[in-house]
Every structure is written in C-alpha cells, then in structure tokens.
C-alpha cells in the first residue's frame, strides 16, 4: 500500500510520523518527570544507575579528554607560533574545551557509551516482557525502571563533561608547557584572565545539563518504544546513537547562538 503512494503523500506521511513521534516522546518525558518521585525516595535506585552510566563511562571520558587536550595543544601551538603568540596557548585550550569540546565531545561519548546501553537494556526488558510482568504485579515500570535511569544519566552528564574539560586542560598543559616549553606562568595567567566563570564555565555546565536531558530521554524512549524483536532492539540502539548525536550538535548550535552572541 505504501509503494502506491505518490511522492507528495509520502512526504506528508513522513512529516506526520515524525511529529507524532516527537509528541509521544515529549509525553513520555513528562510521564517520567511526573512519576520520578519514587526514585528520589529510594535514592539507591539512582545511585545504581549513576554507577552504570557515570562511573563506567569514566575511563573513556578521561582518556579521550586527555588526548583531545593534547591534540589541541599541538595544533594550537603550530598556528599560534606563526604569529608569535604561543603564550596564548592556555587560552585557546581552555576556552575551546570549556565552551565547546568538553560538553559536546563528552556528550557524544556518553550517548554512544551509556545511551546505547540504556536503550539495549530497556529494549530487552520489553522484548522479554519484563516490563509487562511488572505492570501485572502493579509495579509501575516507568517509576521503577525508567525514572532512575533518567536521573542517573542527567546527574552523570555534567560531571563527566567537567572531568573531560579539566583532564583536557591538563593534556594541553602537558604538551604545551612540559613538552614544548611554553612559559608556565603565561600559560596559566592568560588562561585565567580570559576564562570567565559565569560567561564560559557556567554556560558549559548548562550545555552539558541540556545534553544530559536530551540523551537520556532519547535513549529511554527508543528502548521503551522498540519493536519487541532482536532486530527491533538493534535498530533502536542505532537510532539512539544517531538521533542523540544529531540532537547534541543541533542543540549545541542553538545554545551557542543564544549564549555567545554578543561576545
């Protein structure tokens, strides 16, 4: 039946489908927020999820942060050196990490490391009808399964982004000061003069909180909405990573346009 549709109705079908999905996703998020009282009363549920999505993502975050910072140090030095301003290396490394790379790269890694795991877990629970079984026992699966994962992800994301940024700055310091020999005092003092706590660091934290909300919502919704088959789970996992990566980059653009328009 779908093959017989003309191109115009196919576009319409896609648009209506997309909007419908967006609406269901938003209602899902509202339900999660509405029914998350239980997970805050039994805080141990959230702690377990912080371990799963936060602590277990630490290694990939720390290693990537270190390498991103070191690459920034090397590349930045190459460019700054031609203008004789290699003392500004600290500013370059710190501003790019705190404003953009920290939140965005940490969020991309978080989406592929923790988001996909959440989708696969919830999707498998749905496939094996564990969620239905809970409902039969009058346990609300959204309150018991979804909400703790949601809050675990939302709490973990800004912390991971902050760790990414500080490790990245340390990586830039390792390359710039220890290896290449940029003056240490200039490196730190120019960085401290240029980076503003409210303007740069707080905005980076706000970004990472927004990304945390977006990633966990997408991951949980895709898992909850997955077709209850093996193929359905694999598709849902893929969709989680693709959709949340695109959402991160789009949100990043919007947030940056709002935050740094005057500067």
């Amino acid at each position, binding site marked *: 039946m779908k093959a017989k549709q003309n191109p115009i109705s196919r576009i319409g079908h896609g648009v209506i489908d997309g909007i419908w999905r967006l609406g269901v996703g938003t209602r899902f998020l509202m339900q999660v927020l509405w029914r998350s009282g239980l997970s805050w009363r039994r805080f141990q549920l959230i*702690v377990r999820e912080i*371990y799963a999505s936060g602590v277990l993502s630490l290694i990939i975050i720390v290693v990537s942060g270190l390498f991103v910072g070191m690459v920034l140090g090397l590349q930045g030095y190459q460019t700054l050196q031609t203008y004789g301003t290699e003392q500004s290396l600290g500013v370059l490394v710190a501003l790019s990490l*705190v404003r953009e790379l920290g939140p965005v790269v940490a969020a991309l890694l978080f989406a592929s490391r923790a988001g996909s795991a959440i989708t696969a877990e919830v999707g498998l629970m749905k496939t094996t009808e564990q969620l239905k079984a809970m409902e039969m026992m009058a346990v609300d699966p959204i309150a018991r399964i979804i909400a703790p994962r949601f809050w675990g992800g939302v*709490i973990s994301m800004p912390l991971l982004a902050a760790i990414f940024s500080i490790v990245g*700055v340390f990586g830039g310091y390792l390359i710039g000061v220890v290896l290449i020999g940029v003056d240490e005092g200039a490196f730190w003092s120019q960085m401290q003069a240029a*980076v503003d*706590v409210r303007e740069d660091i707080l905005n980076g934290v706000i970004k990472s909180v927004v990304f945390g909300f977006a990633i966990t919502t997408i991951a949980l919704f895709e898992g909850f909405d997955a077709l209850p088959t093996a193929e359905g789970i694999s598709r849902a996992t893929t969709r989680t990573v693709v959709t949340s990566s695109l959402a991160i980059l789009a949100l990043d653009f919007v947030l940056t346009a709002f935050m740094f328009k005057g500067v």
Partner: protein
Amino acid sequence: MERAKLDFWVGLFVMAGFAALLGLALKVGNMTSFNTAQTYTVQADFDNIGSLKVRAPVKSAGVVVGRVSDIRFDNQNFEATVTLKLDAKYQFPKDTSAAIMTSGLLGEQFVALDPGGDVKNFTTGDKIKITQSAVVLENLISQFLYNKASDAPRTDAAQTPTQGTQP
C-alpha cells in the same frame, strides 16, 4: 555488585566531578578575581574606540583593575561612551586620564588609566574628562603618506631652478 562497593564508586565519581568543576572555576577561570567583588562604574567619552570590546580589561600601570561593561554611541556629541566597571579596591583621583591602547602589535585593545593628582576620588557615575582615542592604523599610514607626499615636491622645487639655469 554489593551495595557498599557501589556507594563507594559513585561517591568517588560524584566527588571527582565536583572537584573538576571547582578546579575549572578556580584554576582555569580564576574565580578569586573580582568577579564577585564590589565594583563602581565610571564613564569616559572617546572620539574613536577602535575595536574595543565589552569585557576588555581596564589596566593601570599594567595591572587589571576592572573591565569595560558597556559601549554606546552618544548621539548628542557623536562620541562613544564607554562604561568602565572598576574594582572598589582600587580608587583613582578625579583627574585620572583614560587611553585606549593595544597590547602588542595584533593584540586585544584595553583601556589604560593614568592617575592624576587630585585629592578627590572617583565615585559611581563620574566621567573621565581627559581621554585619548585608539590609534587607527589607517590614519597613521595616511598621515605618513601625506608627509612623504609633502616632502617630495619640495626636493623637486629645490632641483628645478638648478635645472633651469643650466641650459
């Protein structure tokens, strides 16, 4: 995983996260500077501010004593009104002069304050009377070229009589 171990790791993770935030704020962002301290504002009119930006540093004797908080065009006297937010720790005499300078050849522009000798100090809302505008590179070059151009005919004029007498 048993609960005690789980609690330990999550506690460590959360503490590391907050330590990273604190480290960013203190070591990278230097929160200890006067972002939260008491400030007072003074204004200064400039003919030309060059490429001075909001949040550019205000320096006196090379030390950062404040930031530019606002730049506006004054349609009454067709000058730029720059609002400076100065740290309340630093008081300046009323006849202090302000100049827009550039750090290095290509560096950022900042406002330099040169203290005067008045016994009274600035208070909020005061206006700096003596100002010096930013140096515009194009003006400098055109001035230099005009000087060159005005030099050149004089040598010609000095030479033409000698040429005229020869034949």
